[in-house]
């Protein structure tokens, strides 16, 4: 089932862009910066959620007949991650700018949490249990394994970033606050990319087996 039809998807994107465009003049040219920040972040959130829901809601009927399950899942997750990262950085930049201009960041964060909440509620209400499990046992195992490797890479990245900070700054120094969310987003992107690569590797192995039979 496609949760968002093309028309609904376009409408949501247009609403998001309209919110964002409507918010910019408030921030740049007026004294009422808080409503502008709220509109901008909410607009970005709506666009991000619309793209994420669209990507996640591709049904079995939309698939190509001989499409590899693992490959499809890998691409879907990776595109969602890219969308999340792009809009994450975008919202992060907007909030930083808002803070520089003296607007409390809590307003922007509330807008972000509100749009995330709406997305989660839509996903929960639209989710229907499939009569047949989407992945067989082997695919499920490989997916979990790839997720585990991706998570380990994220942890490794966090340790590496911490050690680099210590070696550059020293034990008594201070790090700028902006570097922490940047490190978090970069780590998530790194872990997600590794997960994608592992899944693609397994998908390739699957294709080899199905072409020439099991060894």
């Amino acid at each position, binding site marked *: 089932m496609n949760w968002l039809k093309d028309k609904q998807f376009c409408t949501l994107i247009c609403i998001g862009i309209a919110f964002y465009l409507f918010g910019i003049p408030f921030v740049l040219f007026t004294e009422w910066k808080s409503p502008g920040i709220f509109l901008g972040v909410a607009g970005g959130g709506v666009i991000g959620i619309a793209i994420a829901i669209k990507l996640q809601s591709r049904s079995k009927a939309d698939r190509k007949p001989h499409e590899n399950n693992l490959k499809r899942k890998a691409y879907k997750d990776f595109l969602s991650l890219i969308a999340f990262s792009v809009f994450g950085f975008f919202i992060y930049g907007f909030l930083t700018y808002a803070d520089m201009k003296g607007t409390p960041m809590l307003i922007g964060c509330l807008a972000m949490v509100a749009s995330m909440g709406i997305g989660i509620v839509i996903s929960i209400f639209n989710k229907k249990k499939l009569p047949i499990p989407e992945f067989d046992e082997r695919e499920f195992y490989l997916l979990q394994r790839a997720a585990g490797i991706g*998570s380990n890479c994220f942890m490794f990245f966090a340790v590496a970033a*911490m050690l680099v900070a210590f070696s550059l700054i*020293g034990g008594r120094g201070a790090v700028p606050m902006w570097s922490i969310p940047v490190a978090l987003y970069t780590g998530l992107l790194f872990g997600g990319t590794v997960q994608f690569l592992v899944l693609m590797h397994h998908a390739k192995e699957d294709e080899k087996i199905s072409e020439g039979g099991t060894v």
Partner: protein
Amino acid sequence: MNRTQKMAWMTVICVGTGFLLSAIAVTILYYRIGFPRAWGGLGFMGLSGFAGLAPTVFKKDKTNVEFDERDRMIQLHSTKSGFLASYLVFGGLSMGIWIYQGPHQTISVNTLPQIWMAAFITAFFVQSLTTLILYGKDNKISEGGAL
């Protein structure tokens, strides 16, 4: 009870004890000397490190097959839950500190390992707890298999 369950119990007990003692120590120190010195009570979290001895304490039994497909699935599920919890802690702490302090501020470099350790300990604790819950769920099914 198999080896995985025993190891999970040991982790839960060590981390739980460390957390409880830390909470008590921080509370007492706060009323006696106040923050920031009261944070020294978090040193009790070091007790969690004893959980790392679990594989040595509970050695593998080489005579029997102890790890079947069901155990593997439970392990995968619990690992996933552990990482999910650690992501939430990591993300929540990073963004929370950022929102609280503001982007133009600076924080001590010593905060970074504290954030990482919180996520790391949470991952192990939740993984062990989920393992115990999943095995406990399965044990409720009567002998002869699920209906």
